[in-house]
């Protein structure tokens, strides 16, 4: 502060040269830049390791007995290991292998708007039976006690023991689109019996799975043999 009696800094303000302001901002920005970059570099390995563990945990949960997970892209040109951004028209999936290295199952993500926010689920696909045989929730912000029944309600989870996702004869779409029906009216293997009172969230799950399966399976199924074993 100045020696003047007034405690305000206002009278000094015009005296500050522009260069001083730019210098100060530049200096502070440099310090901040160094801090950000070093913390990014410093945590990168741990963050990636955490993400891998979280993904593996989710996949192991929907495909029991899996021991190893690989990420792939299915595109119209075939299957390729997932590196870089998803190619145009491609879909990402995870191949799970057991301890001996034989393929155990396929997992993929489905996402759709629920009641509060996007509901993201991971579903397991059994290539031999052409069914979905397990789901897990990756993230959702649905109402606790209502929307979260999608992973606690046993009757709802029963829908995903053998949900039919057979491809149509032309191999371009599913033979029957996965559909969520009103609670207690499930008749076909491709229908999902909604949770009474949590219909919006149930529908989000079904829609997410349907969109993802419609896109992924036509690309994946013709190339399944190329996945081989690890």
């Amino acid at each position: 502060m100045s020696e003047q009696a007034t405690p305000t800094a206002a009278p000094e303000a015009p005296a500050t040269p522009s260069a001083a302001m730019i210098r100060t901002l530049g200096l502070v920005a440099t310090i901040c830049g160094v801090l950000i970059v070093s913390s990014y570099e410093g945590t990168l390995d741990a963050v990636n390791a955490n993400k891998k563990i979280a993904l593996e945990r989710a996949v192991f949960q929907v495909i029991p007995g899996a021991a190893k997970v690989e990420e792939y892209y299915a595109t119209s040109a075939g299957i390729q290991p997932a590196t870089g951004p998803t190619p145009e028209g491609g879909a990402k999936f995870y191949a799970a292998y057991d301890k001996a290295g034989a393929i155990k199952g396929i997992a993929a993500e489905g996402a759709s708007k629920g009641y509060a926010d996007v509901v993201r689920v991971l579903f397991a696909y059994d290539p031999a039976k052409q069914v979905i045989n397990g789901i897990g929730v990756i993230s959702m912000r649905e109402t606790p006690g209502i929307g979260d029944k999608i992973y606690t309600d046993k009757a709802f989870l029963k829908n995903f023991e053998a949900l039919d996702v057979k491809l149509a004869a032309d191999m371009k779409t599913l033979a029957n689109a996965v559909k969520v029906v009103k609670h207690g009216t499930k008749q076909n293997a491709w229908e999902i019996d909604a949770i009474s009172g949590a219909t919006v969230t149930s529908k989000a799950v079904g829609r997410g799975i349907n969109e993802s399966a419609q896109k992924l399976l036509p690309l994946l199924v013709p190339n399944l043999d190329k996945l081989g074993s690890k």
Partner: protein
Amino acid sequence: MALPGQKQPSNMEEFLEGIWKQNPTFVMVLGMCPTLAVTVSAMNAISMGLATTFVLVASCLLVSTVRNIVPPQVRIATYILIIATFVTVVDYAIQAISLAVYDALGAFIQLIVVNCIILGRAEAHAAKNPPVRAAINAVGMGIGFTIGLFALGGVREVLGAGKLFGISLFGPDFQPWVVMVLPPGGFFVLASWLLLFNWLNSRKTRADRIETVGGHVHGA
């Protein structure tokens, strides 16, 4: 900060200011956005409190260190830059420590940038005090904020889920009071705490007044 004629507060007073006398949650009622939004469980509340404390202490320390070379015209820009930097650091740190915590706190980690406690402390305290004093005050404020969040998060988790730190308290027969972990519950619990603190405060003021009056009578 000491105004002319006022004595410089001791380090202990600086530290305790944020914990009790100027508690950010219950007295200043600042930073309500994370306070209401993330306090659905005790663990979330404490993680958020600690993340904010880190940003608060680190940015007050740096603001105080550079306070004499920052021209007043660009001080807000400088503070925001510093605060945003430490928020980014804490963002990466939480991702590295636990993705579950990162997902639970969601966008509110990035929103620490605009938490008014931090910019308020930088402008009102750190910019006018030496680094050690600024850091002590910031630690107190951070702990005060964490206590405030925990007071909400703990109560909401117990009532709304029947758990504390994820451990079930009442057994499987407990019917959770779900509204407590929904947004309205945040308002209910915050209002109850504010009621309690204001009641304590008004009782203290009344007691002080009676004491003063009584003293005068005694002196006369």
